[in-house]
């Protein structure tokens, strides 16, 4: 099975190609908020390098967040468009899980920036998810994780957390591929997943909507 993986849920644009679980090619770049213009050229570059065509791909593995709402939609929309054209399968992968892929530690805390002083977080303990993907403030994060045993934290935002304040024993693993969700990690997770006909982003936090105050047009 040939898998193409992509993640655009953070400022990192990441694409990778797999042939029977072997990573064939990967390209990851900090594209900030320019995923729209960067993603397809990155894919085209990777396919040109390997000599593959879009029709060679059996399955598209896509980071569905949590992360940047717009970034996630760029990845999901592109993959859905490609799958519509080629008939390939779609598999959505949680970006917090991608971040922790490959680590065997007992407790792993996955973190991604949610902006506005908040983080997306999930915690895996002895192979089970004990904190499902959530959106917390930094204070809430350390308060809620108080009492957790020694843990490994992944995701580069983990460096900005004041772990010592609540005497949390946390070892940071924020070097690649555990800095931001990377397609090479994501693709590995997608081999044994069930495919779905479409992808629904994992937004986690509700959109920031405010009801307009009764606007006074005339005083």
């Amino acid at each position, binding site marked *: 099975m040939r898998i193409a993986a992509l993640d655009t849920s953070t400022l990192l644009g990441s694409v990778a190609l797999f042939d029977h679980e072997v990573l064939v090619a990967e390209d990851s770049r900090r594209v900030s908020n320019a995923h729209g213009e960067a993603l397809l*050229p990155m*894919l085209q570059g990777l396919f040109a390098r390997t000599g593959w065509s*879009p029709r060679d791909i059996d399955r598209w593995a896509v980071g569905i967040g949590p992360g940047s709402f717009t970034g996630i939609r760029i990845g999901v*929309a592109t993959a*859905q468009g490609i799958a519509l*054209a080629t008939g390939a399968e779609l598999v959505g992968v949680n970006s917090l899980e991608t971040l922790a892929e490959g680590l065997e530690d007992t407790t792993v805390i996955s973190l991604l920036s949610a902006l506005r002083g908040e983080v997306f977080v999930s915690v895996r303990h002895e192979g089970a998810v004990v904190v499902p993907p959530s959106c917390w403030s930094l204070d809430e994060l350390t308060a809620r994780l108080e009492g957790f045993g020694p843990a490994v934290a992944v995701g580069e935002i983990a460096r900005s957390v004041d772990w010592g304040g609540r005497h949390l024993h946390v070892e940071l693993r924020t070097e690649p591929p555990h800095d931001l969700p990377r397609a090479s990690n994501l693709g590995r997770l997608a081999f044994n997943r069930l495919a779905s006909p*479409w992808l629904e*982003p994992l937004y986690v936090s509700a959109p920031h909507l405010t009801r307009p105050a009764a606007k006074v047009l005339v005083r």
Partner: protein
Amino acid sequence: MLVLGIETSCDETGAAVVSSDGTVLSDVVESQVALHAEWGGVVPELASRDHLRNTGPVVREALAKAGLRLDQVDAIAVTCRPGLVGALLVGVQTAKGIAWGAGKPLVGVDHLVGHLVSVFLRREGETTQEGLGFPYVGLLVSGGHTALYRVEGPCADQIHELGATRDDAAGEAFDKVAKVLGLAYPGGPRIDRLASEGDPLRVKLVPPMARRGSLEFSFSGIKTEVARRVASGGVPQGDALCDLCASFQSAVTGVLAKKLFEAVERERMDRVVLGGGVSANRELRRRVEELGRQKGIATLVPSLASATDNAAMIAYAGIKRLERGEVDGGDLVATSETVLEQLTRKGRGRRGSSPHAFSVPRRTE
């Protein structure tokens, strides 16, 4: 040439298949009006989320209704500007994925160009309107745009703005007035219905910027005037409500029609074309048709399905770009600004050669 068009610039997810002569093989529109109604306007994040859910099914339905497989289509056209960037991105990325996956050319289309050529679409049972051709003066009136253009051809560089609104779009004024009057969103069709039962002479509203010489518009003042009346006298009921709607609609459509024909005179044209959702307004249509008859000017109005947001007009405008050999690449971006040249300065303050022309407007509230 058969082109698949995709449109997601605001609150309608659309996909359509159109052929080079304007024949609409299919046109699917999934409206989000109900989703946004509770908020009284379009909420960008909700719109983007909904587009993502709908684009795949809408595209599949458009192909199925046209009786075509994707490989039988020659190219993909997509709205890439202007509009809500997050909403546009969903359509643009989907289109790029489809085009690349299927090995088809891709063209980005300006939504306003789509509206201005929508009159060339021929839906089932429709025949080509008599007198259709270039050049013409186009009046684009919708919830997001209100402007007059000299249209010399179907491509962006052949379309020149003659004047646009300085503030609210006409459709926006309809929606806001409807809100002040306690009518449900979207307010345009409701005001149209109430106005048809009212007397426009019983309430005196001054047609905004109706003086000769300028082809620019302003609709925020008349909206405030209605709000002021409601603030002092309460929301009118029964016949009084109909009369106020009739007066408001008469003032707005009167100015639109008057300036359209001023533009025709100035540009020495012999045909006018309407586009955009507000061209569905019955009074506007009647006024334009009447003035056209009086002055011997051909008036061409697209059918309702072509006038409101749809992907068929995007496919058609895309065909016209493709026929010139234009294509876009995988780096096509979605932007909020139109590609058409804009002459009209937005906001208040004096215009022209006055030394105050570019001074910062004073707040007087």
